[in-house]
Each structure stands twice: as structure tokens, then as C-alpha cells.
């Protein structure tokens, strides 16, 4: 099992290969549909330092606001990444992002972007929101909470031993493509096509 400390540089990412499990520790930032659209609209100076060398987590958490004004992640599993396909490669390149955590995998544009920039797609187990929330040791700050709402806001969090699987690496490999092709063959056989 690989261990990845964040933020990281390109060489740490180039070592990772499809099928490998990776434990993440350090600072990451959540971002999903609204955030990706916003990040592409213009260069967002305020969040750029948090994206550089780090990982975007496709996640819309359940968050509790504590009496002292701090926040606690109550439930925080991955959301479907496919919706960010139009934006992901551009966001990675523009902000120097080293990868994303999500579920369900992404497609060709992102795969090429990962290869070009030296970034990685990390798959978390969908629905395991309790286990994953427990790896969030601190909520550092939040961007766009008022405007985007809790699930779509960009939460800067510190995680410890966040479990993932490398399903798309920086060398063009994709477990999703492999499984899709094998299952297409199996379907054709079942349907006699």
C-alpha cells in the first residue's frame, strides 16, 4: 500500500499505478459540480494556493457547525466523478492539482489530462461516509459556503490515512476502461449479439 503525503510533487504521483491502494494524509479540498464550473470561469486567486500540489475531493459532506463556530464532518463519502469530466483536466492544469478523489471513474479527456500533468484519479468506496468522515481530523476553512451551500462549498480539510484505490494513473492506465471492455464482451455473450 502506497502512502501519499499532501501537498506533493509530480514524482510522488508518477510512482502510483492502477490497482494500487493509497493512504492519503495532509491537506485536501472538496469540490464538486458548482465548484468546478466556478474554477473554470476565471482564475480564482483565493483558492489557488489550496489547490496547488493537492487533491480535489469530489464530495458533498454533511457538516455540523459547532457552538464555537468550528465545523465537524459528519458524513463524507465520494460523489460520482463523471459529472466533472468536462472541467477536470482544465482545472488540474490551471491550478496545478495533483489528483482527484471520487467514485465511478472518469473518461478520456481526464485520462489525457492526468497523463500530461502528472496527476492521478483515486477511487474511494462510495457510500462509506462514516468511515471516511473519521479520517477528517480537521476542517481548516471553507470557501463559498453562503453562495454554494454546504454540499457544493469548497471545504479545506486535513485527513489522516484516507483510504483510496488508484483507478486511473498518470501513465494512461484506467481500471474503469478495462472493466468496461470486459463487461461489454460479457454482455454481448449473454445477449448473443
Amino acid at each position: 500500500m502506497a502512502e501519499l503525503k499532501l501537498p506533493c510533487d509530480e514524482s510522488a504521483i508518477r510512482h502510483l499505478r492502477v490497482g494500487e491502494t493509497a493512504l492519503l494524509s495532509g491537506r485536501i479540498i472538496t469540490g464538486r459540480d458548482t465548484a468546478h464550473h466556478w474554477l473554470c470561469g476565471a482564475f480564482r486567486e483565493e483558492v489557488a494556493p489550496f489547490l496547488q500540489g493537492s487533491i480535489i475531493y469530489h464530495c458533498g459532506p454533511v457538516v455540523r457547525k459547532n457552538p464555537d463556530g468550528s465545523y465537524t464532518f459528519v458524513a463524507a463519502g465520494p460523489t460520482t466523478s463523471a459529472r466533472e469530466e468536462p472541467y477536470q483536466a482544465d482545472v488540474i492544469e490551471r491550478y496545478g492539482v495533483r489528483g482527484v478523489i471520487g467514485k465511478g471513474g472518469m473518461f478520456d479527456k481526464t485520462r489525457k489530462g492526468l497523463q500530461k500533468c502528472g496527476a492521478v484519479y483515486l477511487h474511494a468506496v462510495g457510500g462509506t461516509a462514516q468511515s471516511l468522515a473519521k479520517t477528517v481530523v480537521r476542517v481548516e476553512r471553507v470557501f463559498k459556503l453562503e453562495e454554494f451551500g454546504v454540499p457544493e462549498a469548497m471545504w479545506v480539510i486535513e485527513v489522516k490515512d484516507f483510504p483510496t484505490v488508484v483507478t486511473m494513473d498518470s501513465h494512461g492506465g484506467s481500471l474503469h476502461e478495462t472493466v468496461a471492455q470486459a463487461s461489454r464482451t460479457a454482455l454481448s455473450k449473454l445477449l448473443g449479439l
Partner: protein
Amino acid sequence: MPGSHRLVPAMMKMMKDLEQWTTLVVDVIARATSQLPPDVTAAIRQGRTQEAEGSLAAMALDSVLKNADIACAEKAPMCQDTGVPLFWIHHPADVSTGLLSKACTQAVRRATAKNLLRENAVDTLTGRNTGDGAAPSIPTVHCEEWDRSEVKIQLLLKGGGCENTSAQYSLPDSKLGADRNLDGARRVVLDAAYQAQGKGCGPGILGVCLGGDRGSGYVEAKYQLLRHLDDHNPIPELDAMERRLVDEANQLGIGPMGFGGKTTVLGVKIGTLGRVPASYFVSIAYLCWAARRAGALVAESGEITWLS
């Protein structure tokens, strides 16, 4: 007096009391969001025995089972996407659908404030999160009058990821060789399982409706998702088809989360509706492994039986 709808005075009060219904529905939501139904847990455990030790599929199923244990112990949402709350309510003529619907909406707001549900409702035009979990059609409440004296409330929390992978086919479909018969339906269900890959948080459960129109078909497909995985379809040919489809879908090799493996679906449940001669829809509602269903049966006496 057997079969009577006459209510004892205390119950009569309960039946008309918005606050009592709201409290009850909050309890149903709390159970749904945090407790994986026993039949679903059993099916995941069974799937786990089929996966090779050390495989990604085995790791994913182990993670899912561990997560379910934590959610149950801590009474916390097992998944952060607490979905669209879908209620089906059967009630006697004495109880108002308006009251029950209002209780469901009020309960969703209250459960959202308690972090049992995520702030999960967005105004589609403005893009603003409503902040309280409710919006037009969220929650969705289906009420149906029946001739029994109890009120039966059933809830399914259906996440967006799996909802996005649901599919509807209009038969015939020449690409899939699907004619307007059960074999045609079988073909499109397998195609839907293939198309979903790992995007809907598999292993999934497929609720299927044969017939209906584009609206009623999906509603019936979702209603099928309230069935327990270990039940039997009362119609023998559909029962056989459900079993065959589970077996065949698991030959696709998609596996948990699309990591590859033998556990692609946990169950297939099929219902039928009438159709007009021109249409033959097959609607497939994909449900993630986090099959969050719960319910309550409220007797005339006020006694509550919890349903899973």
C-alpha cells in the same frame, strides 16, 4: 368490531395530530439513514464470500460492511448523499393525506436540522440550496387509501448517484435485439446494469417496471425497491426472471464500485403496470448498496411496528 374503522379516542387524536406524525416520521428517517436493512447486509455478506481474498472487490465490500456498523452504532447517516426522501403511505379513509404529507415535509426539515439528512434540496432555477432539505417534490409523498385500519409508512432515501444511472427503454430496441416480451425486457435490464458500471455505487439493486408510461413506470420501479431481497415475486415467470437476471448481471464482471468482481447486483425486483398498445416501456431504477429503507405500521391502538 373486526374490520371497523372506528378509532379509540386516544388514537383518533393521534391520527389528527401533526406533531405526533412528524415525530414518528423523524424516527423513520433516523432509522433509514443509519440502519442498513438485515436482508441487504446478508446479501452483501453473501457477495463477499464470492470475491477473492485480497481483491479490490473484497476490500470494497469489507469497507461497506464496516461503514454500516459505524453508522448503526452512531445513529449517523451511512452515506452523505441522503438522497430524495420517497415516502409511500397507505392509510384508512379517516386519516388526511394533507396532514400526512405535511408531516413528512416537516419531518424532513427537522431531520435536516439534526444532520440526519444533508441540506439536499436545490432551487433549480436559482441554483440556491434551500438550506432546510425541502423543495417542491422533495420529499416525494405517495399516499394511497386502503381498507385496513392501520397506517403504513414506508421510506426510501434514494441518492443522486444511483438515480443518475437509472434508465428507461422503449421497446423494441433493435440494437439490443429486444422485442416486446419478457426476453426483450431481460435484454434491456442487462444493458442497464452494464451501462451503470460502477457509477451508481454497486453492488446495486434493480427495481424494474414493465409497462406503464414514462412517469408511472419509474414510480413503480422505485416502489419495487421497497421489497426485501429475499422475498419471492408472486408471479412465477417474473420470479424466475428476477433470479435469472441476478445470476446473469453478476456474470458481467463489473463488481463492487466497478472494481471488477462477481458481485454486480444484489437483487432484481420486477413489477408490471398496464400500457397502451403503442408503448412498451421498461423502466429500471438503480439503487446503490446503501439501500436506505425503513418504515412503520401504526395500528388503531397506537401501537407502532417498525418495518425494515
